[in-house]
C-alpha cells in the first residue's frame, strides 16, 4: 500500500503541531475505506518512524518529537468510537510496555487491536514496573498478556519479566512485540511455552481471530 501523499500530509501537520490538520488527514484516510490497522501500520507508524529519523539527523528537537507523539495519542483517542465494539467477550487482556520502556504508542495500538477483536482490555501504558504488573495480572487473572519493548537494550528486563510471570502464572498466554525485537532478537522466546512473538498488528489481529474461532 502506497500512502505517500497522506504520510507527507500527516508529517507536515505533526511538525506544525496542528492537531486539527492531523485529525483531518486521519479522517480522510479512514473515509477511503482503509482499516484501523492500515491506518496504524501504514500511516501512523511510518510517519512516526520519519519523525524519529528527523530527530536522529538533528532536523527536529526532542520537544517537536514529543509534540508529534502527543498529537498521535490524541488522534488515537479521537477514533476510539470506531474501535470499541458493543459486544465484548468475557476474556480479558492486559497490555503494556515493560519496565523502563518509555514508548507507548505501539502498545496502545496493540490494545486497540484487542478491542477490535471484542476483548476486554486493561491498558497500562509505558514503563510498567515488573512487580506491580505481576500483582495486577494475578489480581484480575487475564487470558492474555501483551508486552511491548521498543529498545533492544531492554531485553534483559523483558526476559526477567517473562521468567517471573511464567513462574507465577505458567498457563498465561503472552504476546510479545516491538521494534526492540528485530534482527532475530526474539529467538530466545522459543525457550518459553505459551509465549508468541507478533512482529506487527496484522499478525496479532490474525492470531486473535484464530483464538476467537477456537472459543
Amino acid at each position, binding site marked *: 500500500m502506497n500512502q505517500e501523499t497522506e504520510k507527507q500530509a500527516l508529517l507536515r501537520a505533526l511538525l506544525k503541531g496542528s492537531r486539527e490538520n492531523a485529525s483531518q488527514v486521519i479522517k480522510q484516510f479512514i473515509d477511503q475505506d482503509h482499516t484501523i490497522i492500515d491506518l496504524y501500520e501504514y500511516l501512523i507508524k511510518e510517519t512516526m518512524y520519519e519523525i524519529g529519523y528527523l530527530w*536522529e539527523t538533528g532536523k527536529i528537537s526532542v520537544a517537536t518529537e514529543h509534540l508529534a507523539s502527543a498529537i498521535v495519542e490524541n488522534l488515537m483517542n479521537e477514533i476510539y468510537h470506531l474501535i470499541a465494539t458493543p459486544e465484548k467477550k468475557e476474556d480479558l487482556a492486559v497490555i503494556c510496555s515493560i519496565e523502563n520502556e518509555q514508548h507507548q504508542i505501539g502498545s496502545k495500538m496493540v490494545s486497540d487491536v484487542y478491542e477490535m477483536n471484542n476483548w476486554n482490555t486493561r491498558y497500562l501504558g509505558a514503563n510498567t514496573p515488573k512487580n506491580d504488573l505481576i500483582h495486577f495480572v494475578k489480581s484480575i487473572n487475564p487470558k492474555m498478556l501483551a508486552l511491548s519493548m521498543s529498545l533492544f537494550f531492554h531485553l*534483559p528486563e523483558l526476559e526477567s519479566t517473562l521468567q517471573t510471570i511464567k513462574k507465577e502464572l505458567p498457563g498465561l498466554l503472552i504476546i510479545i512485540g516491538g521494534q526492540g525485537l528485530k*534482527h*532475530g532478537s526474539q529467538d530466545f522466546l522459543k525457550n518459553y511455552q505459551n509465549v508468541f512473538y507478533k512482529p506487527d498488528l496484522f499478525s496479532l489481529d490474525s492470531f486473535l481471530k484464530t483464538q476467537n474461532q477456537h472459543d
Partner: protein
Amino acid sequence: MTKDVLTESANHLSQACCETIEEYKNKSSLLVSKMNASMLKKSNLINIVGSDNIEMMKDNHANHVQFISSILKYKNTAVLIETIIWVFRTYRSHGFSIEYWSVQLNEWINILKEELSQNIFDEIIPYYKWMLLNIPSFVLLSEQNT
C-alpha cells in the same frame, strides 16, 4: 568497508559467560559514573561533544552499558552493527565530533581494566577493540545512511 565485512569480523566475537554478564551489569552504575567523571575532566570536552551536549553524552554512557550488557547476553551481530551506525549518525548530527568515539572507547577500556576482574575484562575487551578498530567504517556507513 561494507556491512558484510563488519558482520564477518563481528561474528568472531564470543558470547560472554554468565559470570561476565553479571559482573559487567552489577558494576554498570560505577562504570558510568567513572566514565562521566573522567570525560568531564577533559579541558577540550566542548570540542569533543559539542556545546550543550553534556547531558546527551551522559545519556549515551548510560545507554552504552545497558546496550553492551544486552549484547553480551544475547549476542546479535546485526543489532550490534545497526545500533552503532544509528548511534554514530544520531550523535554526529547533534554536534558530537568523530574524535568522541575514540576518546570514549579508550576511556571505557581504561575504566573496565580498573574495575573488572582480569578474566572478565579479558572476555569483554575484544568487543571494545573491535568497536575501536572499526570507527572509520562506522563513520563511513553512518554518513552513507544519512
